[in-house]
């Protein structure tokens, strides 16, 4: 399945958001997620299935003013 992760098309074997993060190496990372432009809380990641063409944003703490 191909999904857009942070602006890059990725081939993913996992079907849930939770498993996708693990597959991408972000299993234990402090990140927030948005699926197709909508905030996806951490607690909902395991039960949220991904579909071909979905757009996933994975954001982390960064410097800011």
């Amino acid at each position, binding site marked *: 399945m191909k999904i857009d992760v*942070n*602006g890059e098309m990725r081939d993913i074997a996992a079907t849930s958001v939770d498993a996708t993060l693990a597959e991408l190496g*972000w299993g234990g*990372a*402090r*990140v*927030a*997620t*948005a699926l197709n*432009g*909508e*905030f996806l*809380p*951490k607690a909902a990641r395991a039960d949220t299935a991904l579909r071909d063409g979905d757009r996933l*944003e*994975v*954001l*982390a*703490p*960064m*410097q*800011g*003013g």
Partner: protein
Amino acid sequence: MMRDFYGVTLDSPLMLGTAQYPSPAIMEAAFRASGASVATVSLRRESGQGQAFWDIIRGLGVHVLPNTAGCHSAREAVTTAHMAREVFETNWIKLEVIGNADTLQPDPFGLLDAAETLAADGFNVFPYMTEDQVLAQRLVDAGCKVLMPWGAPIGSGLGLNNRYGLKTLRAAFPDIPMVIDAGLGLPSHAAAAMELGFDAVLLNTAVAQAGDPVAMARAFGMAASAGALARTADPMEPRDMAAPSTPLIGKAWL
């Protein structure tokens, strides 16, 4: 007197940004030298450096104020705020909804829209706004208990562009904690903001892009505290005519 920011009393009236420093070590040293009580942070696409940055911020022992920098619509800002709340584990949000790419001027309409939504959802909103008094009232009505008028456009270093407007705004909302956010270039700007009766200043570029960020951070911390102290000391009113400070009585006839 330090004002209450959503239940938090700050030790220092300085809020400092974490971006644009020459290195993480210099950023850390600048924070320690400044005595800043709040660090602003953001969220960006995961690139593998987020955890190390977060560890440094946590080690500073300051309050964390996530921003929605770069958002140009209320919807985008609201989504970013939700993501920030989860990652940084705080209800505080520096709400930026940018309306113009050149001036980085806040979009008052999108700002109000997002502030209403977020305040109703339990966020403690710190709205980055112009000095417009009508907008201020609308934001307070929407549930904002802190206001953050700009001094000048972000990153410009121009200081307090509309001193009259800021003074008027301060007088119109005596009980609302207010932070001058953006546009400060020199410690004297921070002192002037505090002397006008503002409760804190928020800046980033003026420290991070200085030749010696650590020294400049310390200077801003001192200036903000000096201005705050001067405010409590009830400054004299300026006058147009001179008034001799040395007594004339007892002057010799020469």
